[in-house]
């Protein structure tokens, strides 16, 4: 019975997140257009795009192998599976101890499937894009993992029910520590996470693999029609999920308790409030970042990850660890 409810919940979540994430893309495009004194597309533009792509003929290149057609389906399947482990204003549906590894694994797997799909197309543009995506992929996850594990470890030390689960953020959060040192560390990690978010959804500095003007959409160069639509949808879901992670770590507060709700209405209110927070985080990390920065070269991006973000994550983690020792008030 429990499993049945979880399945229904996952389907509901999937429908909701697809809607919300595509809606955000519309808002984002509108906002960026306004920042550049343009009118911009209507809010529902991504939905029109999606429907149009679904109705178009999908052209399979002559050199493509079986995985080319399989990859978009797998990518969407993995992003739906990922929703079951994502904190959405309430604890993830399948929250268990240690589920953070599943979360990171599935999130990375989406990127990897994209890469595989791209090289399966046999196009040199896609190959170059795929190589870049792979380089970014291995660089960006390291600072994020370090920061995430440090925070979970730190929360584990103040006592949680399920250690190393994304559900812990709704029990304890990192601001509860309260000491000045912990605040400094948390702020540093927040910056790391915002930068990671920008690179995960590939905007601004990190729009490198897709690089429209440079390698003609990179990994997606050969995809068209339905297959491209599926990829776009899975990307949108991934964007929402990544932002949800940042929100859950740093801003996990719900409002249902304050307005005195419980049961189903509380869930709905929490999800809506969570969505607003996700939009706010995405506004900072995506819209503004996208509007005011240009693309880096791949070598520069790798340097940003290993020489800026990774040291920042180390410093933030060390500060949190020192705070635990209690040597400095």
């Amino acid at each position, binding site marked *: 019975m429990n499993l049945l409810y979880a399945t229904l919940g996952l389907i509901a979540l999937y429908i909701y997140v697809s809607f919300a994430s595509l809606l955000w893309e519309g808002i984002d495009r509108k906002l960026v257009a306004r920042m550049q004194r343009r009118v911009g597309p209507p809010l529902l533009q991504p939905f029109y795009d999606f429907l149009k792509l679904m109705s178009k003929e999908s052209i399979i290149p002559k*050199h493509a*192998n079986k*995985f080319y057609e399989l990859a978009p389906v797998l990518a969407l399947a993995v992003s739906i599976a990922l929703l079951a482990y994502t904190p959405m204003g309430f604890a993830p549906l399948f929250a268990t101890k240690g589920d953070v590894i599943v979360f990171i*694994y599935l999130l990375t797997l989406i990127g990897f499937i994209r890469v595989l799909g791209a090289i399966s197309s*046999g196009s040199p543009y896609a190959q170059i894009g795929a190589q870049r995506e792979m380089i970014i992929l291995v660089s960006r996850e390291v600072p994020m993992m370090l920061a995430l594990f440090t925070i979970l470890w730190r929360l584990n030390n103040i006592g949680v029910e399920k250690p190393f689960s994304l559900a812990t953020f709704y029990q304890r959060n990192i601001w509860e520590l309260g000491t000045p040192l912990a605040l400094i560390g948390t702020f540093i990690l927040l910056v790391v996470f915002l930068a990671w978010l920008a690179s995960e959804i590939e905007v601004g500095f990190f729009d490198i693999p897709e690089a429209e003007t440079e390698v003609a959409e990179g990994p997606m160069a050969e995809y068209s029609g339905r297959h491209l639509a599926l990829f776009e949808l899975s990307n949108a879901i991934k964007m929402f999920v990544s932002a949800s992670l940042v929100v859950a770590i740093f801003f996990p507060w719900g409002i249902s308790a304050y307005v005195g709700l419980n049961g189903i209405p509380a869930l709905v209110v929490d999800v809506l409030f969570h969505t607003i927070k996700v939009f706010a985080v995405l506004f900072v990390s995506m819209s503004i970042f996208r509007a005011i920065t240009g693309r880096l070269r791949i070598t520069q991006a790798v340097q940003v990850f290993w020489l800026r973000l990774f040291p920042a994550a180390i410093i933030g983690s060390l500060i949190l660890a020192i705070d635990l020792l209690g040597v400095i008030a």
Partner: protein
Amino acid sequence: MNVLPFLIIIPLFGAFSMPLVKLISEKLRDIWAVIISAVTLGVATDVFYTIWKTNQIVVYTLGATTPLGKGVGFPIRIVWEVDLLGALIAVTIAFVSLLAIIYSLEYMKHDTGLDKYYTLILILELGMLGIVITGDIFNFYVFLEIMSIASYALVAFRNDTWEGIEAGIKYMFVGSLASSFILLGIALLYGQYGTLTMAYLSQYITREPTFVSKVALAFILGGLLFKSGAVPVHMWLADAHPAAPSSISAMLSGLVIKAGGVYAIARILFSIYSISLNIKAIGWIVIFFACLTLIVGNAMAVVQTDMKRLFAFSSVGQIGYILLGIGIGIAAYGTKVGDVALAGAIYHTVNHAIMKALLFLVAGAVLHQVGTKNLNELSGLARRMPLTSFAFLVGAAAIIGLPPLNGFASKWLIYESSALYNPFLAAIAILGTAFCTAAYIRVLFTFFGKESEKVKAAKDPGKAMVIPMILLIIAVIIMGLLPWQINDTIMLPTAKMLEESGKYVLAVLGG
């Protein structure tokens, strides 16, 4: 009735009857080899099931009902003593051997002298089965030599190729040296204690641990590390595996280095020596070689351009994980961490046998259909050989240790226990996996990339080669879906049973 002797009788009968069967017809010869190995698998499964169900060590005495001599309190006969670990490895050996033999029906079709080939492959299986069931240390040496000599011959089976002969000679010269170290160790033990039964020897060494017993252990351990392909002595493996026919590579990499190397190390350290020596020091010696093996094996795999050579180095790397598990199992003997590490090592032994066999069968299929194993010439294979590429994808994902497949659970146990025992070791293990991932992703990119001229005419191989691959894929996936159940019901009891050396001794000597 005790079916244990049939584990040896059947392959022996199959091997010795092969030259006669061949006289009747060539077709019958092939079927005969398949039947013999299938029946062996049946017997092995039965032995395993009996031991697993009763949780008792099975002892079989050759020539009498009791191992003890008339009127004396010590064993005078050869005993076969099988605990869960032995039985588990025996099932793995029989399973992979059966698949390798089915695979060779098509793979070896173009070669000549196949009656010798099937005889040798059955003898190889026989030698490995003998190693895992024996409880007598000289009997162990004999079976080790049976296995080794059969594998020398099989590595050099294609004696019209220069690389087969070269690898065979290399393997034989150093392999014989390693075997003679082991023999020297056994001779020293016999000279000191006057017995060859492992159980009795264990009791003796516990009572009076002498310097000689330590020297003997050093010789035996050195020889066995060679047989398992641990790092300073791994060079034969990287030549032997690419040069052998692929069905043989699958057995060499999946089984020979496990039965003759890892299993024997575990047996000798746990059942003969564990309660008599400074186990912490021994554990750290094993851990030292394990770390070296992990790093060097996986790092060397990254730079290879020859597919089978890459898999061979990857085997070296995976042996590092297994040795790490065993080393921690010894160093943290009797604690929870030690149990978990040992269970992880045993689990990884079985898993790696299955997935590396799968990968070598894939390499064989590519070599058979395209005619090259150079990775630079093989790009875009996925379009022409979708099934083979899928098999590779599953095998590679399993060996890296991705969650829905079987490699995840076993590696997780090893990571977890090494992190709890000493975080530095966990860091080394993770580094090894990073190299391993890089190596396999490189091959994956070759498989999926743009089609090259060489692969234009390739297509998937026939049924006899595809069926073993599919069976192995199914095994990988099923074991991956039930990891913790398998761990709790099979691997942990196996590790417990291996650790209780008192029981091992009592099973032979009586209460």
